[in-house]
């Protein structure tokens, strides 16, 4: 029925339903349009799903980490008893420094809280406040020896357990055997809360302390400083070397096998897995050169080698975007090749190079794997003070905390991630601003 028919005079006619606007044609058009809409919907769905992942990631991290920026404190009326701190009454700093502040804390808890008789009860009471309280009281007494013999209200850091309970991390309705906090501890907490002795403040410990086994005393400052020293080494080495290499390859190098070899090398190095750089650092810098382990110096060297390709590629792109007329003008005025580059091409390409360098640095800042290889994964309490002191970096700190089972560390890990992402956003924003501000269209 669909066959074209030929009339007697040999005129070719298309059957009615297959003509434009005919039934079959309309069906075909409908089908094709449906396919078109479907395909378009797939595209939107793919993009939407990818962006949904991004949003989920951020929501999860922020949801987990936001609470870490506030920390619970407890007010205790501490009796700085003279018989505990200074039995011989001389107020000698040495005696005051080595006194037993744990006893002081225990006595305070005993007087503050009901039914704390017996070892078990006392230990539970002690579980309410952080072990940092001992050091805090010691610092107070050493700063002002006149405190001895007096009773003062002191805000001390609550333990991670209390903090998690009050932030809703532990379900109060579970049976006692299924939760970490006991009924007795909950009772004490409610009493303290009713007396207005519990307060949540900005968590300054997080931003000033080094790592610690106790979640409430653990901070990221040590890791931030470690990252800072590492980044200083990386920037100081990779930027000049990267720019110099790019200038040579783009402006001076003859096209021959040697420069081809260099280019192939750079392109391949950009795609080598980062962990391989870690192996290189371990074998060459630590094992052959005998540089110290866990040091920002070695971390910076490894990250330098890793970021170099990125910076070289970005710098070359910046150099190519400078129009040849600039070079010709300078050469025409009698400048030497080197003068042309240093006086005219380089200043024009510098914003682009800086943008590339910042992006490379932000990638290096988030890098973890190669630093695990060179021992920057140790538990380090002290804040690093130089390029060769033991240190860890922010992403490695995140990795270490992510491994800890305590609920309180989940919160802190997320907070550390937020800080890391904050740094990266700032760096990328700087790169975008630089590009917008100095970009020239020729």
């Amino acid at each position, binding site marked *: 029925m669909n066959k074209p028919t030929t009339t007697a005079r040999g005129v070719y006619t298309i059957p009615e339903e297959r003509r434009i606007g005919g039934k079959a044609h309309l069906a075909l058009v409908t089908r094709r349009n449906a396919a078109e809409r479907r395909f378009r919907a797939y*595209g939107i769905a793919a993009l939407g799903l990818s962006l949904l992942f991004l949003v989920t990631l951020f929501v999860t991290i922020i949801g987990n980490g936001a609470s870490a920026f506030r920390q619970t404190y407890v007010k205790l009326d501490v009796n700085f008893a003279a018989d505990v701190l200074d039995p011989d009454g001389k107020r000698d700093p040495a005696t005051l420094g080595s006194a037993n502040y744990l006893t002081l804390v225990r006595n305070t808890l005993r007087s503050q809280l009901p039914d704390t008789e017996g070892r078990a009860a006392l230990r539970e009471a002690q579980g309410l406040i952080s072990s940092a309280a001992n050091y805090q009281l010691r610092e107070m007494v050493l700063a002002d020896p006149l405190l001895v013999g007096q009773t003062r209200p002191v805000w001390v850091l609550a333990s991670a357990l209390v903090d998690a309970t009050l932030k809703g991390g532990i379900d109060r309705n579970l049976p006692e055997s299924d939760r970490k906090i006991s009924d007795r501890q909950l009772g004490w907490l409610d009493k303290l809360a009713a007396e207005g002795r519990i307060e949540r403040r900005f968590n300054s410990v997080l931003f000033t302390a080094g790592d610690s086994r106790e979640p409430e005393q653990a901070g990221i400052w040590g890791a931030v400083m470690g990252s800072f020293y590492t980044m200083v080494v990386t920037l100081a080495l990779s930027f000049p070397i990267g720019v110099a290499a790019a200038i040579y390859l783009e402006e*001076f190098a003859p096209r021959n096998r040697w420069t081809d070899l260099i280019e192939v090398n750079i392109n391949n190095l950009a795609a080598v897995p980062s962990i*391989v750089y870690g192996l290189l650092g371990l074998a060459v810098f630590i094992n052959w050169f005998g540089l110290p382990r866990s040091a920002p110096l070695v971390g910076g060297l490894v990250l330098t080698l890793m970021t170099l390709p990125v910076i070289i590629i970005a710098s070359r792109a910046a150099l190519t975007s400078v129009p040849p007329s600039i070079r010709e003008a300078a050469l025409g005025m009698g400048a030497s090749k080197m003068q042309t580059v240093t006086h005219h091409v380089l200043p024009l390409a510098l914003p682009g190079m800086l943008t590339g360098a910042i992006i490379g640095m932000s990638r290096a*800042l988030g890098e*973890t794997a190669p630093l695990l290889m060179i021992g920057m994964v140790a538990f380090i309490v002290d804040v690093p003070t130089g390029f060769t002191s033991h240190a860890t970096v922010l992403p490695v700190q995140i990795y270490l905390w992510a491994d800890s089972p305590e609920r309180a560390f989940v919160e802190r890990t997320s907070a550390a991630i937020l800080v890391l992402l904050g740094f*990266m956003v700032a760096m990328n924003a700087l790169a975008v601003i630089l590009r917008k501000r100095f970009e020239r269209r020729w």
Partner: protein
Amino acid sequence: MTPTPAFILTVLLGLSALAYHVGRRRALAVVSGKVRDLHSLPSYYGAHAALWCALPALAVFLLWNIFEGTLITHVVLGGLPDAYQQKSPAELNLVINDIRNTVRGIVAGTPDPVITAAAERYRQWQSLGSFALVAVVAGLGGAGIGYAWRQIVPQFRARNRVERAMSAFLVTCSTVAIFTTIGIVLSVAFESMLFFTKVPVTDFLFGLDWSPQTAIRADQTGASGSFGMIPLFVGTLLVSLIAMIVAVPLGLLSALYLAEYAPPAVRTYGKPLLEVLAGIPTVVYGFFAALTVAPLIRSAGTALGLEVASESALAAGAVMGIMIIPFVSSLSDDVINAVPQAMRDGSYALGATKSETIKQVILPAALPGIVGSVLLAVSRAIGETMIVVMAAGLSANLTLNPLDSVTTVTVQIVTLLVGDQEFDSPKTLAAFALGLVLFTVTLALNIIALRVVRKYREQYE
């Protein structure tokens, strides 16, 4: 008070600044202020002097810093009593470590008087060396200034000299890339060779069993360690495959939508937002996978009556896939945009719809480039470390079940090398052998991918 390296470098810097000044002044003085009589600008004479002042002194400084430890140790060991001289090299190494620790002020237990004395001598030599170094550096700097000063005459081609030094610097910097590659190959290959003297290559490449625990003492039983990398390789491929199943459709379709359909506003914001996914540190993805995705998959699996390992390959692979989406999408976007507009126009002129044009014209034309970008993404997935370290398991199961726990090459490298290690145990060396495999595989993938992409690009240029 021994001079620190920072102090010496500061002195040198000051000296070179002085040299620059002196050289400039001298150049102006030679022609009594008529700059046009000079061959080069006065600043070049200054720079020439500064180079002569700084470079030789810097070379000496670096050499001394590299060889200081070895030299002083040699001298100090020579001064030890005979009883110590006759010790075996291993024992002697312990003694050297003791001495160095004592020098740094780390004393464990009761100090041996001989070692304390040796440490004292070590410290003396060290301080003597530092002072001598200051003298030599300052002397060389001064001599350099003097030499450069004497060379300054109106005809002296200072600019050419300085520029030659600068090009030498540029060339040196550009070879760093080559040295890095050589360094990677040598370090990984050298340690792997050592490993293959202890474990046969065939056992490593084709062994089906991976359990790197070796006996610490000779009398321990049952733990000779087996180093067959097949389970690791299969695990890596499984995780990468899952990642690709997530990333390729999502990345490719997003790229097609952004390139062909999206209104300009969506494109301006959608593309950078998608690329944010690539900028997030992998340790964050690892945390996300371990904390959120793995429990989610596990509870979903349990609800369906499936047994899911808590560290399933699926969780690690899926999150890795999310990370890789932007790699696929931005590379595909480039190749899709490189397809000439004339081909699209031709297709539209024949009456094809947009999706038909995409499926029958653009995709076939862009296919080699897309394949290249997928290969690059695969190499990325194989080398990815933190996500699998945090979300995949440690046990080397030879399985293709995505709900099971598998381990990967990178995870094993990290586990073998984190913590204390000695460079002669097969455990440590195995990590380097795995690194060699990883490097070779990713390098091959990259070379193929880059070649495919380049060939394709040339086709339309």
